[in-house]
């Protein structure tokens, strides 16, 4: 019987996906309620739905980070770590499956909200915007806008991945200490974020630059896109380093 790595990864992925059912449901139900709200409600009330959608967007971006703590710490608190650590697979696969779930959460949640927002726009709000370039035509006619949006989305995704890797790394570092694990986790998380910020500032792709880019969205699009991508790349590299560190410590140093 072939026990391919893919099969094992899939099992881990599905198992971890189930563990974050609550967080997924929050977003799904939230979006469903808001969508029902503006589809069934009156024309006047439709614009009120924008705020909840924005809030849900924030939630969809934040919940995966919260899930990242839940996914690891629960293994220890429920003792399922005995099962997981005994499996004949590397720490990279264990953490990789969890990361895949977190990314699924983020992408799924943000896409869902984007779809709902577009639906809201098309059904109720089109009258408020310029009739010359309705809907998706706006994007087709302006490729740079599309690229900018994609670069923006990608950087958000990579930044989330970076935050989750920091979370994994911090929690695993925390587990090295039997008595002060909470403290070590918190400290590692904060220190890693600060250090990362400093490193990227030194490289010129840090948060300062990012902020300036974001408020200059109407400016030079090409510049904006390339800067976003540079930022994404930097955070991606950092995320990978933290992931590898976490996996190595898990494999070599963690004990039950």
């Amino acid at each position, binding site marked *: *019987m072939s*026990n391919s790595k893919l*099969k*094992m990864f*899939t*099992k881990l992925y599905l*198992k971890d996906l*189930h563990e974050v059912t609550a967080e997924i449901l929050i977003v799904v139900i939230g979006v469903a309620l808001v969508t029902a709200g503006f589809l069934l409600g009156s024309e006047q009330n439709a614009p009120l739905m924008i705020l909840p959608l924005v809030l849900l967007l924030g939630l969809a971006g934040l919940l995966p980070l919260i899930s990242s703590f839940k996914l690891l710490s629960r293994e220890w608190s*429920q*003792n*399922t*770590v*005995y*099962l997981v*650590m*005994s*499996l*004949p*697979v590397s720490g990279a696969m264990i953490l990789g499956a969890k990361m895949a779930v977190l990314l699924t959460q983020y992408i799924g949640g943000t896409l869902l909200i984007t779809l709902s927002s577009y639906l809201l726009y098309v059904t109720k709000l089109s009258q408020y915007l310029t009739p010359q370039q309705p809907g998706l035509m706006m994007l087709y006619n302006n490729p740079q806008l599309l690229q900018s949006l994609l670069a923006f989305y990608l950087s958000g995704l990579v930044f989330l991945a970076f935050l989750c890797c920091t979370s994994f790394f911090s929690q695993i570092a925390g587990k090295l200490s*039997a008595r002060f694990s909470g403290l070590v986790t918190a400290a590692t998380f904060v220190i890693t974020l600060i250090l990362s910020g400093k490193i990227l500032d030194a490289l010129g792709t840090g948060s300062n630059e990012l902020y300036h880019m974001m408020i200059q969205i109407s400016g030079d699009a090409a510049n904006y896109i390339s800067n976003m991508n540079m930022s994404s790349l930097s955070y991606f590299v950092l995320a990978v380093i933290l992931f590898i560190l976490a996996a190595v410590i898990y*494999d070599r140093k963690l*004990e*039950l």
Partner: protein
Amino acid sequence: MIEFDHVGKRFGSVQALDQLSLQFGPGKIIGLFGPNGAGKSTAMKMIAGLNQPDSGHVLVDGQKPRQSRDKIAFLPEIDYLYGWWTLKQAADFMRSFYADWDDNKYTELLGFLNLREDMKIGKISKGQRAKCKLLLTVSRRAPYLLLDEPLSGIDILTREEIINTLIRDFREGEQTIIISTHEINDVESLVDEVFFIDQGRIVVSGSAEELRITQGLSLVEIMKEAFRNVQQ
């Protein structure tokens, strides 16, 4: 063969294992006995690759334990399965990770132990959960079976079922079963070899039958003797 070579392990101020040296030969049912806190669980987790020695080394068939995880089926004392799993989901999970999973054995033992696949791990009784854990562990044809207190807190009838499952499926010559327990009484007739461990050291070891013949005592009585001597 499992080999401990002058293994030391310390947790804070407690020396859990102290220059521990022993060999678990193949094809036998081995009893690892000792009072609570003697170091039995620590030793078992070390074989399963869940912790590492501070000094000395542990080898499983000449390899490090963490490289041998596919040969070892470890049954910890605590509840280590996901509560929302059904038995079927748990079996499906194990099947995907272990090449030595035997579906025929699984189905057969499912009936023998009176379990149903739709049982939810978190909702069943302690005895049924113990049987589920055993089922999942024994359905693998793993060369090394490590059972950490498999009978503690289990009612008598379930204990018998568990012991009979072990007897029924034991592959003499091919499989090694290591049982750690402080209730020696339950497994007197089950073990080939015994290792009495106290404060991280072996105080008595040998073949169960030979010990009975030479000392004229049951294993329970031999342990009492051994610990009385140590305390002096």
